[in-house]
């Protein structure tokens, strides 16, 4: 529960009490003051409460804890703690290159106009599969589409370390190719150590200090 949740719960409780009061004492709405109270209680305040609730729920759905709460994602969460500097998700997670509490969302949501909503829609499908469908093995879980460099360049584009890295100048137009997504950052022999959940056993893991 974050800091805003208690405030929202308190506000919602007040609205619930007012709605119940209006329901129990509906005859109050015969008077002018009662009509105004009913309009505020049964239209304005519930809309505000739902709007705040939607905001809170959408915010929560971007948290790492939320993504890893499905059992099938456990190994992916564990892969973030792998003690291997070549392992891209682990390096990003352990060095705060992505916010730890929003790690999955930062790299796996399309940075496009409807990226957020598309992710939510797919997430709802995942919940359906988790409870009513055939749950795949973690190693069989693949992305819907090949990983787009756009998601990497959202942070790395323009960064000195990225632009001046010698490995990024093996070909003269390598950066341009990466920018146009013609050459994937995850190409073999480049940054190809991604969530390799099938081979987690036997590795050492970094322990996060509290």
């Amino acid at each position, binding site marked *: 529960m974050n800091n805003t949740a208690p405030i929202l719960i308190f506000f*919602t409780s007040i609205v*619930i009490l007012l*709605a119940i009061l209006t329901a129990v004492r509906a005859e109050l709405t015969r008077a002018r003051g009662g009509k105004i109270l*009913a309009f505020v*209680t*049964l239209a304005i305040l519930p809309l505000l409460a739902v709007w705040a*609730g*939607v905001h809170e729920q959408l915010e929560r759905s971007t948290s790492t804890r939320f993504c890893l709460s499905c059992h099938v994602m456990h190994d992916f969460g564990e892969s973030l703690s792998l003690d291997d500097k070549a392992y891209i998700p682990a390096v990003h997670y352990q060095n705060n290159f992505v916010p730890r509490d929003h790690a999955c969302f930062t790299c796996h949501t399309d940075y496009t106009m409807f990226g957020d909503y598309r992710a939510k829609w797919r997430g709802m499908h*995942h*919940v359906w599969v988790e409870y009513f469908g055939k749950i795949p093995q973690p190693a069989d879980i693949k992305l819907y589409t090949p990983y787009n460099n756009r998601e990497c360049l959202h942070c790395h584009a323009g960064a000195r370390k990225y632009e001046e890295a010698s490995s990024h100048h093996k070909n003269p137009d390598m950066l341009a190719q990466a920018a146009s997504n013609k050459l994937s950052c995850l190409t073999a022999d480049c940054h190809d150590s991604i969530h390799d959940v099938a081979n987690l056993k036997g590795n050492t893991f970094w322990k996060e200090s509290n």
Partner: protein
Amino acid sequence: MAAPIEHRIRWSGLIIALGLIVQSCTLFWTHPLSFMAFLLIGCPLVAAGILLYLYSLASHHHPSGAESEAPR
């Protein structure tokens, strides 16, 4: 006996309260199921309650309105 508008307002208030109770409960748990419960149960209940209230206003014929239209 309660007027039809009061009957609808009563139901509207109860449905909205129920929807908001569901919403409050989902705030105690960060989980996809909680998100789904909010989206598929809480929100529709509140929306239904608000719509019922608005319908009760729109469909209400005030007796004094009928009197004012009558020839004097």
